[in-house]
């Protein structure tokens, strides 16, 4: 596992490896390199793969680094496949699928933390316990960060510290993570000594 993703504090999410589980249906949501985790998941189902795919819906979004592996997922011939350019576009469809679903639906999320966190949040809002969702990290380690001061979210943060894309404050990136915001916390780094901002280091790629 990428060293950036190793558990540092207890609020920082940890991710597993997707594995096929019995259920009434299967919903898979992935971005970027997360497509590979879905392909591996289906391969892991062995003889049960065809039956699983017949009850599987896949939603896919290219990664923040531009990786687009839609072809690999489309080739699985799942019951349905949908590609969106970004999460905001995929979200209404995801919410509709969750709203129509029954208990027993299995949810598999893979790719970047931003995608996993946001899709998990939608599953929780639909009424599922967060532990019911399987996750696997793949691809870019860029972070989704909420500015604790102005509440604005900056997507795809690469450096620490960085400038809030909403209020312009210089923020350092904590490992403290909120499932409800699907974001890490950004805190003003030069609040006590305005203007004393250490050089930005590229921590997330």
């Amino acid at each position, binding site marked *: 596992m990428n060293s950036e993703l190793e558990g540092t504090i*207890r609020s920082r999410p940890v991710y597993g490896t997707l594995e096929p589980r019995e259920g009434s249906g299967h919903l898979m949501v992935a971005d970027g390199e997360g497509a590979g985790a879905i392909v591996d998941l289906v391969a892991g189902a062995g003889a049960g793969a065809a039956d699983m795919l017949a009850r599987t819906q896949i939603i896919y979004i290219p990664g923040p680094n531009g990786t687009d592996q839609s072809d690999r997922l489309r080739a699985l011939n799942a019951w349905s496949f949908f590609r969106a350019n970004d999460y905001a576009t995929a979200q209404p469809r995801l919410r509709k699928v969750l709203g129509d679903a029954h208990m027993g639906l299995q949810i598999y999320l893979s790719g970047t933390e931003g995608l996993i966190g946001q899709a998990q949040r939608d599953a929780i809002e639909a009424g599922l*316990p967060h532990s019911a969702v399987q996750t696997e990290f793949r691809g870019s380690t860029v972070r989704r960060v909420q500015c*604790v*001061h102005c509440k604005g979210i900056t997507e795809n943060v690469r450096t620490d510290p960085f400038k809030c894309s909403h209020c312009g404050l210089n923020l350092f990136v904590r490992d403290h993570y*909120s*499932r409800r915001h699907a974001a890490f*916390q950004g805190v003003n780094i030069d*609040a006590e000594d305005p203007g004393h901002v250490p050089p930005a280091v590229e921590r997330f790629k």
Partner: protein
Amino acid sequence: MGLDFFKQETFRDDYTFRNSPEAIRRFPFPFAEDSYMYSVNMEPHVAGPKGSVFEHMFDVDEHYLSEMRDRAMVLRDDPLRCQSLPHMTLAGWDLLELIMESKARDYPDWFELHKTGNRWTWINRPMEIEQTFTFLNESTLPHGPMEYITRQTQGDFTLQDQRDNNLWIDAGMVTTQADWSLDFDIGMGFHEWHAPVPHAHQMGVFDRALKFLLKLQLGAPVRRFNWTMTVDPILDTSPETYPKWGPSKATLTLDNIGHRQHLRVELQSLHRLPRSNAIAFPIRAYLIKFEELVTMPKWARRLHRVVRDVHPDLATYKGFLRNRDLMVQYLSQFDDGKPTSPGWWPEPE
């Protein structure tokens, strides 16, 4: 006591907050010995000596009205400081009942609660409130039940839902906090919202505390202390407003530290709630200026030793590492090296 007991003071701008000699004498000094490290320091929240902050379930002191005015201003500027996830409304009613019954019982001159079935009338004389409402009917109060009663009660409050052998911080009124964000932390599990605390996880403090709290029983509340340091008497030291209050830390000098540096003590208690099975967690903050605190020689000696010897990681987490040397320099004037007696009571000399 009459209503003139309550002082008019500010926790912002001109900072007129100060403690009367009586408030100093009853201040909940949190150190029972000359050193400090985390522990699961919980004890039953039972009535303490008359006049102490433990005398009643919810202490109402001379700062009551000023604190409530400050809370209203914080909420006006940022309503997200009070949030309750939808399933926590019942716990909010539980809290409202607990506070109203306690205050009406403990302070009959100031608060009254009259019940005719579910038709309740609440009288809060200091705040000049009289409200008739239907218990468990949200549409009969101007705010949700938790917000309604905590706009009239000193201290922050969180409500923890108990599920899956864990506690989830799913509601809260947080305007007098030691630098943590309800808006960010709401919905987290016990270990998650404590995640930033250094050392305590490795010591197993949170595992033991959680195990203990999951078994917390109805009618048997417990309490503990926590503490930190705050420059100027600011109740609302939130992460949200850190750019506003952070710079003050860089302005302390040996001349002004006695007046501007405050020890901030949280008297935290935990109560099992009856209808929701949730746990209420009042976090009551008390502020005392260093110059007020050193009027008690035992406290002065002990605080000097605690601040001098506390682990740098804790000083960093509590946000006072940069001023620690200055604090030690100031406090050392009041430490003649004499031994201190165990326990936290003041012993004036």
